[in-house]
């Protein structure tokens, strides 16, 4: 996959498009960590994407911080927000968890709408990309591209490591049977909170990077439609699979790119994909593919 993305701009793909896919793929991977392995459906993840975007854009533009520190600042802000939101939201389970995260995200949306530093509807525009570590000029498309790729791979590996660590196993155990995990001596709430904060932090990393790529932080990234979008990416790609979120992000961003001229059709088709996925396609693209491979292997002599 890393090779595929590394050569993508050389085979005629528009770098900005691939960078957008990478940012959303990281966002979706972070989200998948929570829903796919922790069983927690957050309907407010846009707040982490957007918060980090605003903070890093503000840091880069108004404080003149170099890009690496701006990204770090944005990510840290999302992590802090993740701790606060997580502490409140994990008090309730299942559907309530979704509604609470949604409501808190909506609160953040109104906060950013009114706060002066976000410039309301205009957003923070013309964010300077700066020089990475003082040497690499990120206004060069290719330099920016490989930086984004490196950030994505870093985030992806963090998620991969987390899932395949004892922590990830305990998380799965809690998802499957919380009372039993508690009876085995695991502090379920702490594990869930940790997963939530980790997910929020990586979403923040995606948001901060996205703000530098597009040199823009706007209200779109904190709106609830964005929260819905990341749910859709993960659902379509395959919840609880490693590569599912990446595939889902690629498909959805491509779709949006091509459908952009048709206005509201994006919303309608997005909604339809949701309905079809839930009714007939719950394992997602990667999940169904894996199941199909499994069936093939199980067939004797096949």
């Amino acid at each position: 996959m890393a090779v595929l993305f590394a050569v993508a701009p050389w085979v005629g793909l528009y770098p900005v498009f691939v960078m957008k896919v990478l940012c959303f793929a990281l966002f979706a991977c972070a989200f998948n960590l929570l829903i796919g392995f922790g069983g927690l459906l957050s309907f407010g993840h846009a707040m982490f994407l957007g918060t980090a975007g605003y903070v890093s854009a503000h840091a880069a533009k108004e404080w003149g911080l170099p890009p690496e520190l701006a990204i770090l600042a944005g990510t840290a802000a999302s992590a802090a927000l993740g701790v606060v939101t997580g502490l409140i939201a994990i008090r309730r389970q299942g559907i309530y968890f979704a509604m609470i995260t949604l409501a808190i995200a909506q609160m953040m949306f109104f906060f950013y709408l009114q706060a002066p530093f976000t410039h309301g509807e205009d957003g923070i525009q013309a964010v300077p990309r700066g020089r990475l570590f003082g040497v690499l000029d990120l206004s060069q498309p290719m330099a920016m591209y490989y930086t984004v790729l490196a950030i994505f791979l870093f985030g992806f590996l963090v998620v991969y490591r987390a899932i395949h660590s004892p922590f990830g196993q305990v998380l799965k155990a809690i998802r499957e049977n919380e009372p039993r995990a508690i009876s085995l001596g695991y502090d379920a709430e702490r594990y869930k909170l940790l997963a939530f904060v980790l997910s929020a932090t990586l979403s923040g990393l995606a948001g901060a990077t996205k703000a530098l790529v597009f040199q823009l932080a706007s209200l779109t990234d904190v709106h609830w439609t964005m929260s819905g979008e990341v749910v859709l990416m993960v659902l379509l790609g395959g919840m609880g699979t490693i590569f599912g979120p990446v595939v889902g992000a690629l498909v959805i961003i491509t779709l949006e790119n091509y459908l952009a001229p048709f206005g509201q059709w994006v919303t309608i088709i997005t909604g339809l994909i949701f309905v079809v996925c839930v009714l007939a396609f719950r394992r997602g693209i990667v999940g169904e593919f894996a199941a199909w491979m499994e069936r093939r292997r199980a067939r004797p002599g096949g």
Partner: protein
Amino acid sequence: MTEILGVPTQALFGQLLIGLINGSFYAMLSLGLAVIFGLLNIINFTHGAQYMMGAFAAWFLLNKAGIGYWWSLLIAPLAVGLTGVVVERTMLARLYKLDHLYGLLLTFGLALVIQGVFRNEFGASGLPYRIPEELTGGYNLGFMFLPKYRAWVIVASVVVCLATWYVIERTKLGAYLRAATENPALVQSFGVNVPRMITLTYGFGVGLAALAGVMAAPIYQVNPLMGADLIIVVFAVVVIGGMGSIMGSIVTGFLLGIVEGLTKVFYPEASNTVIFVIMVIVLILRPAGLFGRER
């Protein structure tokens, strides 16, 4: 002009009235959500879209069929409720055995589809719907002017809410409903057709949303996105009230509407967020909600 706490009484009562109106809609919508959740265990994300469909149904009836407000109050909820029945039978019914989150995702997708289709047809700007003739004008109460239509909305929604409460808590039908909420298998074994009851309950909840939509049409404009942001506030109302109790969601709805109205007077910057802030505080102090019980 008289003042209370440094605020002109006119402004104060004006905002209180707006708060009460908003509260009426919060109450009716969260009531529908609570009834649906009780039996189906599904959070109906389409609720806001169905509220919008109710308003559009009223607009259609008036402008295409010449049917006025009063008949719309009956026809629109029935029509939209019927679409709810179809949705339940064809889609939601397949999800009951799965994790409840799928119901949320499905209804979210449906809401996107419905809102997208209406926006395609009607754009994002609102369509006006005039107040029925019988309810134009208003009363001068001395300290404020009370438009007749707004008084009607408040009274009507209180009546609707109380009637729903009465049916669920005090009649035999409601007893079946509450029993099925506790243990559907047992109720079914007594010969009650539980699947049909579930279908009708969903239809009823949806109809209630549509009724709220019709009542809202003359106040807010008829707009494809009128329910999109509202539903999130109603979710917060539901979390604050706790979904265990019918009366709880009614009282919380009205109460929060008033709180929101008052915030607009005393600290306008926070009026959009006050309900969410209250939600956070309630969650910290009483995670089950004000009237809810843990389950």
